[in-house]
């Protein structure tokens, strides 16, 4: 009876302590978490994984266009990240570094998977298969905002799928991740001039694909 009472008393204390630890981690900045990782604290890395897994997944999916491959590449990104975390320089940006790992893994994966050259924007335009994304006609009453938004999202995703990987990644990093040109250049491993050029032509392509909704 006494032992059971102790057990009951102990449980809330343990749960509260675990919760307190998790809360502390979520309040720490990336830099603080990286410092702890460099000291071997795996639970701090868990918080970083939690913060960035969907963004890394989105980036990988954008490049490889396959959910299973993207999940595997996402996992591989974080494993490599942990293996290399001790060499991470404190003043750098963690997510830029992480995205760079993702990009390199995805590029290697795409190269291994298929050997066909990347279809650049100009070729795609010239082939005149660049029809705009069709908005399906409907006899139904005007859709609600939510439905309309969902339709638009699908159109955008379809349009993004038509971009080459190089163009897709810069659009993703700029429009959805909010990175500036210098960060994108570091992630992708090209010059800022190349980022500017790719982004511009990607947008031109999207203009054509989405002309019916713009």
């Amino acid at each position: 009876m006494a032992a059971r009472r102790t057990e009951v008393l102990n449980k809330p204390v343990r749960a509260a302590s675990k919760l307190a630890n998790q809360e502390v981690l979520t309040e720490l900045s990336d830099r603080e978490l990286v410092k702890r990782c460099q000291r071997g604290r795996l639970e701090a890395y868990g918080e970083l994984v939690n913060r960035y897994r969907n963004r890394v997944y989105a980036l990988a999916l954008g490049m490889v266009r396959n959910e299973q491959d993207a999940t595997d590449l996402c996992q591989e990104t974080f494993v490599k990240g942990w293996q290399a975390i001790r060499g991470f320089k404190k003043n750098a940006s963690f997510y830029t570094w992480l995205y760079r790992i993702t990009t390199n893994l995805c590029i290697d994966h795409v190269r291994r998977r298929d050997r066909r050259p990347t279809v650049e924007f100009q070729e795609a335009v010239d082939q005149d298969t660049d029809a705009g994304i069709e908005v399906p006609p409907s006899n139904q009453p005007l859709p609600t905002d939510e439905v309309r938004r969902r339709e638009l999202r699908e159109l955008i995703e379809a349009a993004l799928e038509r971009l080459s990987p190089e163009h897709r990644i810069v659009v993703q990093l700029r429009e959805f991740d909010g990175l500036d040109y210098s960060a994108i250049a570091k992630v992708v491993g090209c010059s800022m001039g190349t980022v500017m050029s790719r982004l511009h032509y990607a947008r031109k392509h999207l203009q054509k694909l989405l002309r019916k909704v713009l």
Partner: protein
Amino acid sequence: MKSHNIERISALADGELKGLSRWLTQRHVRHCPQCADEFARIERVRETLAACPPVVEMSDSADFFWSKVRREIAAREQETISIPMPRLSFADWLQVNRGILATVTSALVVVAGSIVMLQQPTRSGAVMVERVDTVIPNTVATPLKGAESDVAVIWVSGLEWTPDLDQMQECFDNIET
């Protein structure tokens, strides 16, 4: 902009142009209908994408995914790898940091210039007697060489002695040169 640099219009819409290049591009866009249209189109694309970003979520739950990562980390515990830090090209680094570089370089130029200008007045060099002569009979003028280079001495000997300055006139009036 001397010509229609279309790519810069995207950069302008993204707020990536700074200083003079931003001012020039904005001015061009204001006056060029073609580029103004292009700018408006790019803005529309950006707004559309921002309004409906693709929602991408991993099918694995957070805990499940983390458990997979942890397992893989444990399996490769003995491996360490080195991943270089992502960095900009030198030209891009200069462009990104041009404000700081210009400030530091300007400060260095000002400091160096001040040092040079402050040093100039105290600079000393050689004073040199190239030629010396007298026309007064029995008088000799001799340049003396000294250790310092910033002072030269001419020693004139044989001039008439006078008891007082007031009486010097009389002595020199009698000299035939």
